[in-house]
């Protein structure tokens, strides 16, 4: 079975869509290459504008749905959870019947395993709303992309590109995310010690650039 149309849901609350949008755009281009029509929707923009019906309509006209989201406090960002709640309230237990659901998490920590619980929440959402759960993957340390597209990110995004390309093929066939694709997506983009070292340096440099380098350890909320 091949599908004609896929919906890519960007779950980042960042105004520019962050790493989730970068991955969605790459996945969209791979899907289009294999003749799958693609629609991209931003969950928070729709939910916060009270336009959740646009998301529901987009789901109705798609055969396959993938949610790409950043890890927020070990789970999904609140706006995505609100979307889950509203979908179940309005569309019921069979709202996703006959449609495939996938999810890709990305976190600011280097270990992709930290997103496991968030993906399990996606599994339960799919189960409780009638979607067919077709698999999920997790990217660790997505911030190393620094806002660049995956094509611009060269060697460090090589495995992620390969994993998303494999995922696109699986989605086009209505199939599950393969172990190979999941492993490629979850492979660290840089070694953990380098991520930690350069990450800490980047925070200091950015704060210094904003004139607050000497105030980073402030405790403004501590009771005197």
């Amino acid at each position, binding site marked *: 079975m091949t599908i004609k149309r896929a919906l890519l849901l960007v779950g*980042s*609350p*960042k*105004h520019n869509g*962050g790493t989730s949008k970068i991955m969605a755009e790459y996945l969209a281009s791979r899907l289009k290459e294999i003749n799958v029509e693609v629609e991209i929707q931003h969950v*928070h923009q729709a939910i*916060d504008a009270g336009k959740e019906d646009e998301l529901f309509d987009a789901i109705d006209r798609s055969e396959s749905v993938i949610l790409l989201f*950043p890890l*927020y*406090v*070990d*789970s*999904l*960002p*609140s*706006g995505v*959870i*609100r979307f*889950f*709640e509203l979908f179940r309230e309005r569309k019921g237990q069979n709202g996703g019947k006959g449609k495939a659901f996938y999810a890709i998490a990305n976190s600011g*920590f*280097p*270990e992709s395993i*930290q997103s496991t*619980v968030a993906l*399990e*929440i*996606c599994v*339960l*959402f799919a*189960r*409780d709303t009638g979607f067919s759960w077709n698999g999920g993957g997790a990217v660790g340390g997505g911030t190393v992309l620094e806002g660049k597209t995956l094509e611009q990110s060269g060697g460090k995004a090589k495995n992620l590109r390969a994993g998303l390309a494999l995922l696109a093929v699986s989605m086009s066939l209505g199939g599950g995310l393969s172990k190979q694709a999941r492993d490629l997506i979850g492979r660290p983009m840089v070694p*953990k010690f380098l*991520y*930690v070292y350069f*990450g*800490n340096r980047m*925070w200091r440099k*950015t*704060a210094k650039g*904003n004139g*607050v380098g000497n*105030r*980073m*350890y*402030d*405790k*403004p*909320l*501590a*009771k005197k």
Partner: protein
Amino acid sequence: MSLGKLLWRSVDDFIRLCMNILILDGSRQPVAALENVKAELRARMEGKGHELEEIILRNKSMNRCIGCFSCWVKRPGLCVFEDDGQKVAGCLANAQLVVILTPITFGGYSSLLKNALDRQLPVLLPFFGKVEGEVHHALRYESYPTMLVVGSIENQDKLHENVFARLAKRNSVNGHAPQSNSLVVYDKETREEVSRKLDLVLDGMGVTL
């Protein structure tokens, strides 16, 4: 021991046992089982000198975290949104015990509660450190509260409950909680049943109210 020393030790013990306690209620409408938990907690705290802050999130106004990281690199320790999210962060930074209440939502927390937790980034530092072998953000404040996460669900559902317990555990690692536990209460449970469960879980955490 002199009477003066004995008296001083008693006062010192009392002060140490008095806690700043924060209750965060993330239910969109009152849930009987969670109301029972709150009533039990209030009853146990009464007259013990604890300072209780109870925040019903459905009555609060809170922007979403937009992942701008201003709280780390522009206004260290403070969110750009000066709303009730900031108030929750202030309570959290000064609490010794936080009790989080939520209807279990796909194994996780309600969107209301999650919104409040997403806004707690300012209480941590951006710098990475290791906790239990994983990379996490370092502490901004000297200490962080013991954490009890209570979820309500209509009927027993092991799948939801297992995910919920793991999420609570992960949050306690991220939140540098010295002690933590989670508890699931069912809609039809009586206050007495809830009370017994609460006894066990508080005891397990070494918390005396």
